[in-house]
């Protein structure tokens, strides 16, 4: 049996092809998905998605969303997804630093919520690069 992965963002289809295995970071921790997985629906956290093509592992930064697995079809709906190889390490690192600074400066409930979200996004992007190398 083959497992098909489809990563959709509002802009475009990021990934739509066959994979061997994926590791998905969900709200309740990472789960690995192999062919013939039981149908589940899960929330996807801001985190990295690891994809195995034969013997090669790829990473992707996911910006939070939802995944549906069933019938050897994985559909991942996320706000934004970036392949680890497409992220510019310097830029990502810089964004992370800005986000950290912003969180320290944040005042009030609202700013804290915003800063926290931004920080988590930035951190995930940096992680996606680091896993690669």
């Amino acid at each position: 049996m083959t497992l098909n992965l489809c990563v959709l963002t509002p802009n475009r289809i990021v990934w739509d092809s066959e994979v061997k295995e994926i590791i998905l970071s969900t709200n309740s921790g990472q789960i690995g998905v192999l062919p013939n997985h039981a149908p589940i629906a899960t929330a996807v956290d801001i985190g990295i998605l690891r994809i195995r093509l034969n013997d090669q592992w790829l990473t992707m930064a996911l910006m939070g969303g939802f995944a549906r697995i069933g019938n050897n079809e994985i559909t991942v709906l996320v706000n934004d997804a970036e392949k680890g190889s497409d992220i510019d390490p310097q830029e990502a690192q810089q964004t992370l630093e800005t986000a950290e600074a912003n969180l320290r400066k944040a005042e009030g409930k609202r700013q804290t919520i915003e800063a926290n979200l931004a920080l988590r996004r930035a951190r995930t992007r940096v992680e996606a690069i680091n896993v690669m190398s």
Partner: protein
Amino acid sequence: MSAPNDHQQSKSLSQNLIQKLPLPPLIPPLFATIHLKSYTHEDKDFFTNQASHCRPSFFFPVPPFRASKTPLQLGTTMSCSNLTMWASSKPSLSDASALSCRSFIAPLQLPSQNSLPASRSSSVTPVQCGLRELRERISSVKNTQKITEAMKLVAAAKVRRAQEAVVNGRPFSETLVEVLYNINEQLQVEDIDAPLTKVRPVKKVALVVITGDRGLCGGFNNMIIKKAERRIAELKALGLEFTIISVGKKGNSYFLRRPYIPVDKFLEGTNLPTAKEAQAIADDVFSLFVSEEVDKVELLYTKFVSLVKSDPVIHTLLPLSPKGEICDINGVCVDAVDDEFFRLTTKEGKLTVERDVIKTQTVDFTPVLQFEQDPVQILDALLPLYLNSQILRALQESLASELAARMTAMSNATDNAVELKKTLSQTYNRQRQAKITGEILEIVSGANALV
């Protein structure tokens, strides 16, 4: 021959005239009529019968060519000028469209002119212009026409790209609706308390106003701003507080000029709306709502109906009703009409049709799903996605409407420029002809006098 002197005299006379008249813009206001109309008319017939209103009615101050001449010359000059006048004031051009260069009736003019009372009573001051001015004017109209034509083509090309963007986003939104529908079915029985669905008594409302970044697109920006103003007035009447999130340069400059309207954030759009921009707006909206600063978020944007029609609409973005949001992709929860808060906002009644379409799409999807997390958590993950796709869609539609409006406006402007150019060149040719005839007459009469 005192022709040079006369010319100078007429120049100074024209300068006086210019000082007295309110100066019209130097560039032919081809677009002015379109803008003006958008202020006064509603959107319904805006695009349809525009052409009939678009005849430019303006005039331009140029030196009157005629002035007093010596009695000896009067006979020939008169015949020449009469010829000019009759040639240029065609019946098709009414008094309102005074671009025909009618004779300027100076006080020392002979009272035997037929058109004298008519032109004096009309509000537009007819001005005669010389050949040179006409030539300049024709070339300026020509240039403007080139610009408008180019803008039209650019807008047309961009519309295609905007449509592509919508098509690219379709798989996502379709799957999302499918999943939401499916989950909603399973969640109906449970009592859900997700932060984005929380319906609180409304004290403060956030309005997300999406405008364009550029002008020259007919009444597009005005229509949406007027809509926002109306909504603000309504909210004020209801005694509710409000705040604005302005997206797009035109809206930004509008609200910046009006400091009494509270604006939470100014955002700028770019050429093509992406998920990032939608995310920026969604983040702002999300934090405003979750931190309970506002209790309701409304989205004001221009809905793209077709290339010649677009409507400014208001959609409720938050709170999302977990039962309703499946029903239509456009963000107004249909089944919440009984709700008091919803009755405040769901004034656009075009939702039922789309609901049917989406329901047919989702019928065949029935796998036995297991929830990895709490249904509430899953809903929590899905609703921001939904929020984002809503905003992205609104941005895309707004852009498409803007481009379509620009296309229409520019195509009208080009048509007007063509028409104007035609009339002006006709006048120019007639005047030239008249001048030549006059010169020939002078030569002939001079020759006759010698004989």
